[in-house]
């Protein structure tokens, strides 16, 4: 009997060993997290150091060039800005409307199920497949060309699931009594949505939109697939003109390049002088996505703090 039951000192030893393993695992967890953070820091510092010599005001005002020292990102950042405008104009109304429909209107039937399955599924489709869709549909079937509008539409489809999911989550956190209150004073469904649901869910929707846009800004593969040019030494026509009607939409169908493609182009050149340009472009790109993500996190944090239903 006493041979089977461990003695008191043996139990103590077991406990000490188990405790030590606990501490060891905490250390392991911190190391694992540290590897993640260290990678991020290494990545950012490496690019900042490599690209520092190129991060000058001229870098933003010069077109790409065959000489690495004179090349800049003017056409790239303008292209990114224009594409993002198209993306936001398409993805935000569509995504918010879809989210509202699914949360406030959708009946429980197979059509709703179909839509929901599709959204979950689309979130998992590789981005390059969206590029193939755009190439076959927007470029060749609709004849939109390898232009700003094609890229904007492609990225809009890509981030649509993100916007829809964020909208739904924001709407779901509004308690039912808000809706009941609105209905009780005779509001219609749309009036309830327009005057209550949308205003109260705006911060949440905004968070989702910003995260989606930060993803779209860095997307390279689908835009390469639709055949964006990598060397563009001119700007699209300006949206505002001197003549009546003062607005021009020619920029929508102009050829373009964007930041990540410019960076890819410079990275894949064998000449190391261009790698410095790639590093500078990458630093700006990371900085932009970081800023957008930080804004989203801050918004979410504020949202959780301020609203107490």
């Amino acid at each position, binding site marked *: 009997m006493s041979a089977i039951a461990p003695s008191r000192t043996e139990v103590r030893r077991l406990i000490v060993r188990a405790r030590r393993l606990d501490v060891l695992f905490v250390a392991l967890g911190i190391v694992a997290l540290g590897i993640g953070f260290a990678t991020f820091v290494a990545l950012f510092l490496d690019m900042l150091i490599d690209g520092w010599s190129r991060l000058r005001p001229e870098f933003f005002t010069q077109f790409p060039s065959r000489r690495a020292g004179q090349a800049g990102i003017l056409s790239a950042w303008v292209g990114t800005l224009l594409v993002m405008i198209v993306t936001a104009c398409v993805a935000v109304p569509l995504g918010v409307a879809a989210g509202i429909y699914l949360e406030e209107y959708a009946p429980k039937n197979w059509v709703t199920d179909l839509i929901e399955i599709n959204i979950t599924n689309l979130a*998992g489709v590789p981005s390059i497949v969206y590029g193939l869709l755009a190439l076959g549909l927007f470029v060749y079937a609709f004849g939109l060309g390898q232009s700003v509008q094609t890229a904007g539409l492609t990225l809009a489809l890509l981030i649509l699931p993100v916007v829809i999911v964020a909208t739904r989550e924001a709407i779901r956190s509004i308690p039912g009594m808000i809706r009941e209150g609105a209905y009780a004073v005779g509001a219609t469904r749309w009036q309830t949505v327009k005057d209550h649901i949308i205003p109260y869910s705006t911060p949440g929707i905004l968070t989702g939109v910003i995260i989606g846009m930060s993803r779209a800004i860095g997307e390279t593969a689908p835009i390469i697939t639709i055949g964006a040019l990598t060397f563009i030494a001119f700007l699209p026509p300006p949206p505002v003109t001197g003549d009546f009607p003062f607005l021009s939409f020619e920029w929508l169908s102009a050829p373009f390049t964007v930041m990540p493609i410019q960076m890819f182009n410079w990275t894949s050149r064998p000449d190391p002088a261009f790698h410095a340009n790639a590093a500078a472009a990458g630093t700006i790109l990371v900085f932009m996505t970081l800023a957008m993500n930080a804004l989203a996190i801050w918004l979410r944090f504020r949202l959780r703090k301020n609203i107490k239903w």
Partner: protein
Amino acid sequence: MDSASAIDAPRGARLPTVVSDRLAKKYSRNLKERAIEALLFLAAFVSVFTTAGIVYILVKESVVFFSQVPILDFLTDRQWTPLFDDAHYGIRVLLSGTITSSVVALLVAIPLGTTIAVYLSEFASPRAREVAKPVLELLSGVPTIVYGYFALLFVTPLLQALIPSLPGFNLLSAGIVMGIMIVPYVASISEDAMRAVPMSLREGSFAMGATRLQTAMKVVVPAATSGIAAAYILGISRAVGETMILAVAAGMQPNLTFNPLEPAATITAYIVQVALGDLPHGSVGYQTIFAAGLSLLLLTLMFNLIGFWMRRRYREVY
């Protein structure tokens, strides 16, 4: 008209009612409500159109491709040379690159991601979790082209110091960086699964005298197995669909190999390579990217379906 108030009215005369006319159902208002609902529905239905569009485009172009290239050759040929005169279309060549790089990525992401998930869910204080999770999210928000640059110009030289024979393009450094990229993804889904395990199970374990690590490994992780497995599978799907890291750091040379120390093109890198060239619309070479895309879609779809199925399973247990 207003039938409810007309029922009790003697000889059809209307009684004065408290219900004003303004509350009666208005035709125009009803129409507006219906129109808005229809518009919102259409917006939601865009997702169905997108899926249909993807399937239609990929299948349409692939059908043309497979009418010229027998599907058996596509699956069994050991060469991938669609742009040469002596064209061969063996998807296995590209698949080998995709599989090798994904395996490397998973060898990095699974241990790191699982450790982080267990640590955050079972050990970390709520405060530490509040800080760590958003920072991890930032890691997954970095554009993949930036990771590609990092793999090619930082990790590869670092690895070359350890393995002098390593070529400038290789699957190893691309795979490692890709693994780091999907760590947040694996960690956050596994952590969700672990936190869904009811507290009573942990309390029972603690009451029996188990330590935190024993509780985590023998109670929480087994209870969350299907959710953790789902995280791994969704991670695989991410790795398989990843493009830019591989296009930049692994080279675009088709190479039937399972050796991560060699350069090799993946399915995604091949699509990028063709898109960068200027193949005429309608040529077989152009259609190969749609056939490759269809293979990619089927591959990720399979993983996603298994992943979603497993995620749903663990939700139903409790």
